[in-house]
């Protein structure tokens, strides 16, 4: 199991143990982490699993994986260079301890 740290906009931390292969979105939703919604169920179609990859992990995780992800991030509130959609990132053992920040709100 891989440990992921979700930090809400107000600073509240949630440490979650995640089975490798699970998406960050599913990991948040299934562990009741507030601030990630996943309305479309992981179809890269709603941008409500918008999150920010902590700077030290950005190179490892990489930029948006597709034009669709890039387009959808463009519609999210407060998108930055650290933005990714959680449903498009599958957790790997190498991500153990990774920090992920959540936006003010999902749209």
């Amino acid at each position, binding site marked *: 199991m891989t440990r992921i740290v979700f930090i809400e906009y107000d600073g509240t931390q949630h440490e979650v143990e995640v089975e490798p292969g699970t998406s960050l979105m599913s990991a948040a939703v299934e562990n009741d982490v507030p601030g990630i*919604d996943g*309305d479309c*169920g992981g179809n890269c179609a709603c941008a409500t699993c918008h999150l920010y990859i902590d700077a030290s992990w950005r190179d490892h995780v990489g930029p948006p994986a597709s034009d669709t992800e890039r*387009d959808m991030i*463009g519609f999210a*509130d407060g998108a930055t260079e650290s933005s990714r959609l959680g449903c498009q990132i599958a957790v790997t053992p190498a991500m153990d301890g990774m920090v992920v920040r959540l936006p003010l*709100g999902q749209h």
Partner: protein
Amino acid sequence: MSTVRPAPDPYAMPLEAIDMSDPDLFQHNQMMPFFKRLRTEAPVHFSPGSDYGPFWSVTRYDDIMAVDTNHQVFSSDHARGGHILGYEMFFIEDEDFQLPMFIAMDQPRHDVTRKTVSPAVGAENLRHMESAIRASCVDILEQLPVGETFNWVDRFSIELTTRTLATLFDFPFEDRRMLTRWSDISVSVPGSGIVDSWESRRRELEEMGDYFARLWQERTHNTEGYDLVSMLATGAETRGMSRAEFMGNVLLLIVGGNDTTRNTLSGSVLALNDFPDEYEKLRRNPGLITSFVPEAIRWQTPLAHMRRTALEDAELGGQQIRAGDKVVMWYLSGNRDERAIERPDQFIVDRRRPRNHLSFGFGIHRCVGNRLAELQLRIAWEEILKRFRTIEVVGEPVRVRSNIIMGFSELPVRLEPWAAA
């Protein structure tokens, strides 16, 4: 007034005869068995003839998701017929009177335009609007008659959504019902009882343009304003916007935020009356509002369909769609698809994954105001539950005659406050 008629039987006719564009099916609330037959036997179904010409009906959740997310193939462009059946009738474009709206644009223009307005209904701005919406709601509730029958649609649903739109635009309070009027005429054709002629419709829409142009002029230096007009008038990317584009954006937000939220504010009351055990769950635990609100939006499906036009041949559900074909995503059907949603014909206030519904659409055109809609519903029910044990539906609802707008013109109710302790 709608008259009662016996329910037509979808199994008593050949599949090809089924035409889901018939607005009478929706007004009489008799469409669901037809959708069920289509989901089972012809999930991608061709209607060869209708008032709108031939079109495909897509009725399963997964197929709808596939169309909605494939904007490269399935176009919303106004020049091809736009985003709804009957677009040509509703959003008539005179040569001199083009109102561009991003709901009926493809990329790249869609993205650029949408991003000019999405901050106005984004998370940060919603925080600013919340207290004004709550104050409006409390004011409206405190003026409602208790213990006598009245029309919930007019006294509450229309009133709250209108005041919220007025807040969104910082529109003068005493003129707020002009917003409702402009929205109603823009989706009406002459002869429907709403507007008499194309000329008078256009004249009223020009008056709307003049009114908003004046507000724009007054706010060109209002960089601190959270209202949409100030944001557009002062934003670096938007202050050069043409009058036509400004009017198009304003009208889209007025229409988008008008009867949709209104009809869920009404439909949520009816749903709780139809499922009294669920109403009791909500009374005992108002915290369930968080899941009740999206469930109400699923249940109502304020816009029954969205339409696309195929830009190229495509296969869907084993059917061959040809370039130029109209493709209709029936959100109302997808929201009742047991393949994607558990016990979809039950209204469940504490449903798991209540937000996994199609009412806002998905993909690049997903409803930009969706969180504003949810905010109004949440505030409304927080304030209602503090004051009233029951909003009792005491007469037959009157439904709108439309294949797109799922709504009510009348919902007779009586309020029962909480008993004195």
